[in-house]
């Protein structure tokens, strides 16, 4: 990875952080639904994995998808519009924060925990037959590793050697429950062995570690080795949903300890050591915020779909 790569990762993580902060502000104004799931703290996972993807790869994400979508190529402008429920979002605003589809960008997500694990296997079934080296990438959380879909989906992908890169974002909590109380395996990636596939655990607060692991894993998957599971150990700063009563399950001290591992200052220190001027990074931040403000203003000016448009594609009319 050269300095340009590192600068790109930094810029992407910074844009994602600022975007998420602004989305949370919009939620506090009730312009985005109350249950919005912030991604702050986990940026290194989405951006690190994104570094390993081709545009024609397909991402299947979960109920906290904005980081994954952004890393796949959905723009901040589109994400603003979708989360605000307006035209210009990938689903023209009818999906909202948890279940939009960006078809031209090969991006899917959904809000039922674990389901994507089986859907990604089906996407990969097609890719395996196609034989073009495309892969499916499935993001899910620690909580999803306890679902039937995790077991059924990983087993199916393993027995048929399907090209899926499974990214388990362990952000320490399943809603309000600490991961160590509800997942029997530590690290969770040990579960991969039960399906006869490779499972590794990486520091999900370090974008370079995630990118290296994702590139290596993606390459194996592209070569036909079957599915690979990567557990990225990370932390969400803002609760399961923004403004959840997180004092019931964690302390300020704990959040502060994780903030000390924040992926942005870590990469910044690295960039400064490589001779990148600090002023350049500050300027980058200003430009990002300025562009995001323009994107937000644009999105807020977009109309909503009409009822007829919103319900127009429930079923394709039968031809008799």
């Amino acid at each position, binding site marked *: 990875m050269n300095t340009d790569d590192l600068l790109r990762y930094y810029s992407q993580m910074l844009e994602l952080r600022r975007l998420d902060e602004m989305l949370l502000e919009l939620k506090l104004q009730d312009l985005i639904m109350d249950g919005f799931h912030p991604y702050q703290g986990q940026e290194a996972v989405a951006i690190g994995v994104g570094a390993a993807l081709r545009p024609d790869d*397909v991402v*299947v994400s979960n109920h906290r998808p904005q980081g994954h979508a952004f890393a796949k190529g959905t723009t901040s402008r589109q994400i603003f519009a979708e989360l605000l429920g307006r035209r210009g979002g990938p*689903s*023209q605003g*009818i*999906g909202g924060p948890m*279940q*939009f*589809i960006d*078809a*031209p960008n090969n991006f*899917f997500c*959904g809000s*039922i925990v674990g*389901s994507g*694990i*089986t*859907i*990604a*296997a*089906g*996407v*990969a*079934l*097609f*890719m395996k*037959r196609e034989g073009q080296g495309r892969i*499916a990438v499935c993001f899910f959380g620690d909580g999803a590793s306890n679902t*039937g*879909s995790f*077991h*059924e*989906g990983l*087993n*199916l992908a393993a*027995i048929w050697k399907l090209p899926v890169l499974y990214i388990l974002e362990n952000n320490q909590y399943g809603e309000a429950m600490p991961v160590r109380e509800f997942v029997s395996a530590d690290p969770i990636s040990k579960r991969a062995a039960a399906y006869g596939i490779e499972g590794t655990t990486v520091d999900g607060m370090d974008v370079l570690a995630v990118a290296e692991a994702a590139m290596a894993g993606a390459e194996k998957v592209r070569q036909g080795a079957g599915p690979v599971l990567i557990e990225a150990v990370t932390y969400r700063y803002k609760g399961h949903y923004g403004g959840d009563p997180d004092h019931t399950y964690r302390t300020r001290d704990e959040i502060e300890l994780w903030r000390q591992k924040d992926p942005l200052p870590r990469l910044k220190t690295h960039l400064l050591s490589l001779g990148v001027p600090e002023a350049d990074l500050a300027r980058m931040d200003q430009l990002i915020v300025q562009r995001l403000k323009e994107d937000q203003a644009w999105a807020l000016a977009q109309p909503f779909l009409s009822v007829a448009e919103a*319900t*127009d*594609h*429930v*079923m*394709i009319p*039968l031809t*008799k």
Partner: protein
Amino acid sequence: MSATRNISYRDAVREATREEMRRDKNVYLIGEDVGRWGNLFGASAGLLQEFGWEQVKDAPISEAALMGCAVGSAIMGMRPIAEIMYIDFITIAMDQIVNHAVKYHQLSNGQVKVPVTIRTQGGIGMRNSSQHSQSLENWFVNVPGLIVAMPSTPYDAKGLLKSAVRDDNPVILIEHKSLYFTRGEVPQEEYLVPLGVADVKRQGQDVTIVATSYMVLQALAAARQLEADGISAEVIDPRTLWPLDAQALVDSVKKTRHCVVVTEAPAEGGWSGEASAVIHERCFRELARPVKRVCGLRTGVPYPTHLEKAVAPDAAWIAAGVKEVLG
């Protein structure tokens, strides 16, 4: 009339599957024991030998995974026929159907299509008791975006399955375990039965019997009994429960002025109520009496043969229902 063959419902399903897999290599069959066994009833026997593992996939006993796999491959352009061995097992795959298969088209504003055909079978007739004998079609009628069909004859089984595979919507075809070895005439040449179109299985003047799946056979038997009593019964098979061919029902009831709706599924909260409501809404002035429903009991299906039969309608129940509405 062109040449026909007399074949079983089971063989009609197999012929449709084979023809569609030959026509389009994107069509593939996935399910538990669809390959080596060729399905519990032989409905896919020989297909593994003809098409190989690429198109005939024995899946692990993982209904969520096989349905998720079907959905994921369908959004990429494949056309899976996902078989759930008993409809009772579909509980494990409901999330993939209800939350994903039928949602992607709308969420993508029409850009993503999910041409999944789900094949399964329900109903009584094999002493399978309460977890292998249910009639669960009512659940699926309540899922926007899902087409629900229940063929009652070999002709319909073949033609509807071929239409389902070619349709770009998710379709569930619910077969009936007591129908697989019934026989009927099927054309020599290729044909389709359109989704969403009812069929008049018997013409009559005095009463309309709307029946689904195996109950069509019971309704036809009832009609023959009633004929001896001088009652002329028309039997209508909607074939597709949703979208419902309401006009076919309305046209018949306007003529006969009496209607009985028959399903093996319980009446409460079910499709029979929807059919009944449509007739009341659109034929209220023509109806001589309120619509009568003759439906399975709201119960788990018991194991012994005579008790199993006792909880689902038969020709005698239906004939009694007809006499009640004719007063």
